[in-house]
């Protein structure tokens, strides 16, 4: 249960035009969850910061549940797959 898996944390429309600022806010959110900037940096897979706001990060189930409870988070889901058509 403590195994980390990639989760997508979706925050909706981005709240700032500067992508660096958006990414920084993602790192901050992840740092507060994981307890350190270093852990946040290691966990972060992607910061979605141009068309919308969100990030992909390696999280345990309990971490995913905790961040899903944040008011600014719309959805947290484990990564999944599409196939070619």
């Amino acid at each position, binding site marked *: 249960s403590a195994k980390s*898996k*990639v989760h*997508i944390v*979706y*925050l*909706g*429309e*981005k*709240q700032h035009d500067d*992508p660096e600022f958006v990414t920084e806010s993602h790192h901050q959110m992840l740092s507060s969850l994981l307890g350190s900037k270093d852990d946040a940096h290691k966990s972060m*897979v*992607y910061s*979605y*910061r*141009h*068309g*919308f706001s*969100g990030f*992909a990060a*390696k999280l345990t189930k309990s971490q995913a549940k905790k961040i899903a409870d944040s008011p*600014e988070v*719309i*959805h*947290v*889901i484990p*990564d*999944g*797959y*599409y*196939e*070619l*058509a």
Partner: protein
Amino acid sequence: TTRTWDYLGLSADNSKNLLNDKNMGDQTIIGVIDTGVWPESESFNDNGVGPIPSHWKGGCEPGENFISTNCNRKLIGAKYFINGFLAENQGFNTTESPDYISARDFDGHGTHVASTVGGSLVPNVSYKGLAKGTLRGGAPRARIAMYKACWYLNELDGVTCSFSDIMKAIDEAIHDGVDVLSLSLGGRIPLNSETDLRDGIATGAFHAVSKGIVVVCAGGNAGPASQTVVNTAPWIVTVAATTLDRSFATPIILGNNQVILGQAMYTGPELGFTSLVYPEDPGNSYDTFSGVCESLNLNPNHTMAGKVVLCFTTARDYAVVSRAASLVKAAGGLGLIIARNPGYNLAPCSDDFPCVAIDYELGTDILFYIRYTGSPVVKIQPSRTLVGEPVGTKVATFSSRGPNSISPAILKPDITAPGVSILAATSPNKNLNAGGFVMLSGTSMAAPVISGVIALLKSLHPDWSPAAFRSAIVTTAWRTDPFGEQIFAEGSSQKVADPFDYGGGLVNPEKAAEPGLIYDMGPQDYILYLCSAGYNESSISLLVGKVTVCSNPKPSVLDINLPSITIPNLKDEVTLTRTVTNVGPVNSVYKVVVEPPLGVRVAVTPATLVFNSKTKSVSFRVRVSTKHKINTGYLFGSLTWTDSVHNVVIPVSVRTQILQNYYDEN
């Protein structure tokens, strides 16, 4: 694509068509999210292509066997996204993987899609002489940006694309300034709601469409069963697949001189008269026999050695043909005739082994010839390309069908385009490629046709919304083939195609250029949809980035301003509204023509719409009532606005449900 564009009326030889009028889509940027690109393919030469559009903010990312100079004025962008896939597959060995850790395409699918959407002109391309012609994309001077988010996995012998990588690709494509985004990918039913991130394409597409990018997606290959269509969000253009007016007729000549035209991509030498067998117990043997294609391995080798084998199968997928051919070949057989229902996924058998498909009726003819002839023999000649009449257009068996299983009132698929046996560029690693070109089938192949057409339309109407492009192609689509003949749909029996097979119909690019009226939509309409679908306000607010309060009572999904009317549960009577915007001559008068579905009354008010310099948009009401007393299936009609120059047609689909929410299996 050596036939697609001539078939759709976009011949490069016609100087007066949409293609040449708009300089072949120059200045339009098409983003493709797929397996990457083979940049050296002739399809991506930049001869005659102008400078890179000024709105391009993307780049060409170097990686394994890919350097930034692999991009040019045609292939202007190439990026790859693998972090999500790697984080979830830590055992994946990038050094041992045959795929390239770069935008370079190992699988070939992405190259095929990219060359279909916007490949440059390449004359004299064929598959070993079949389907010969000039290969090109729909918008041959449009620019291509490849976003590789799909990776080949040895263990799967296939490709997988993770949500997290796709979402990053969409995020980057939005940043880079693409005008059209083409995704030949999809999930499977059951579908996830549009505000659920599990449908990452719908979520990413929402943001892309909100920024004016047209998002075109494959509708999926799970047909012919109904309710299988995917990528159904109302802001996405969802594409079904048809055949072309082209086939690969392969003469099978029986010893009694009967000639049967099967289908194959057989390019080997003629197989002269050879013994023909259907493996079955002669009545005096202890051996096991089977004429079922999947079980040919049960037959003693001597039954098939030196012969052409006839077998029957209920399967439609090509893998059965390929496996059966291998079994016959391994037993020393010289050819294979497969009797099956059409699956529209023809492919050559490896090593030019003759394998020809026919239907059960012709298969039974051959079976009876074998049974009632002392020494049955057969000759198989190489396949020939048959183009134009009398080859009819069919919605492919595999093409996923509506209704939309999330919101049946939102008609899906939207539109159809050729997606069967399409010859286009590929990776040289691809099996069965001939000189870097391969024939593939799927809604993957149909979606880039629509993306290419929209790229051309975008050059003509740079200010149109994504919904306007969708409306233009849907309301002007052919509901017959380009020659006026009916389009059929393959299923458990062939039937005349309906909107759940092909949406508005077969894309008609020339007509779509000047549609007269459009059913426009913007972000506010998508919010109305989300409210009508019952999503909670907080999710909608976050998705759209502003506080959203749904009206009370909720808006009706029937009022979403789509270029279609689909009423899944009509009990007595319902009234719905649409708004049309004039994009034709300023002073125009349109009159309504209704073809109601059988047993359904459709009344439109007003019956005449008058447009002038002050009135650009007009709303009308449609009152629909049923005469039926039972729960019916869907019945189809149409609603047309005509000014005698433009015919703006939308499909009308109505199902009477006296008993609501009722699953009928009596």
